[in-house]
């Protein structure tokens, strides 16, 4: 395990609130951010995977708060939907739900996580400092794969 590392090319990170906890996601791959009102029919929130109407079709919408066992997003409050696309991979376009989007910042220094203690070591990339504390940078592609696996294993997909 290495100590603090300086990122060769700085990361552009979006800080988001999921169920009351802050996380970071790389802006690379995020195609759209939409603020969705409670009555908006384009969004269906489900425990793990719901859907979001995007460019004439429906894409999977990950309820990250539920996946992380944090305060879950509901249809009673405004949510932010982040559409993610990684054309260079086999992962399809999907969306994630967040309670808030706090803003973008450049990250030049990161600290690794002790992945050996994680249930799913591939869903986290590293940590970075933010407002005097540290928050976790998520690997959205692997989270999507884990959520799909989880839903499949429960027979709901």
């Amino acid at each position, binding site marked *: 395990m290495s100590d603090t590392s300086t990122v060769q090319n700085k990361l552009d990170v979006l800080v988001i609130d999921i169920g009351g906890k802050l996380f970071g996601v790389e802006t690379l791959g995020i195609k759209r951010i939409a603020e969705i009102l409670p009555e908006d029919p384009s969004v269906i929130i489900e425990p793990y995977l719901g859907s979001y109407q995007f460019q004439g079709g429906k894409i999977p919408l990950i309820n990250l708060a539920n996946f992380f066992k944090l305060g879950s997003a509901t249809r009673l409050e405004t949510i932010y939907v982040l559409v993610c696309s990684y054309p260079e991979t086999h992962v399809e376009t999907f969306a994630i739900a967040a309670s808030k989007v706090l803003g973008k910042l450049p990250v030049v220094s990161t*600290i690794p996580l002790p992945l050996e203690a994680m249930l799913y070591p591939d869903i986290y990339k590293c940590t970075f400092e933010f407002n005097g*504390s540290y928050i976790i940078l998520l690997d959205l592609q692997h989270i999507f794969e884990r959520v799909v696996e989880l839903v499949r294993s429960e027979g709901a997909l």
Partner: protein
Amino acid sequence: MNTHVQNFFEIRIGRFFFAIQAQYVRRALPVVPHIDVPLMRPNFGGIVLYNKRFVPKLFLDSLLGIGLYRTSVTVTTDSTVILEVDGTVFCSTVNEVDTVASIGDSHIMAVEKSPEFGSPIFPRRDYLLGYFEHRQKSIYILDMLRLHHDSFAVGRNV
């Protein structure tokens, strides 16, 4: 007659006293705040920044099955103990750290001979190597290799 002597780092968790072979203990610090991380393996509760890197925090009381003895007091003697087993660095919060005791092998007894053995609340037998009496207390020796193996190597994705 020469007897082999081992150095043990003594800690208290709840009402139980435990000994950790000194080679597994890196440092004892005042309680270091942790950062919550969702979806950690069972018995882990967050990460702690130590020496410019994050180490996982293991709830020893949960692992040992003595979590019922967690108490809340205003004056605390709690400490964060940094441990290293088989190259893995991790930490645990304990209620008290005590001295390092040098104990001869002849003083180490089978756990089953402890007067507390068989009590309704007793540390998991499979994580104990034995026990010894020190300053009128029964001190249970933790099997750190087993504890490390079960925490980090077994039951992934459960």
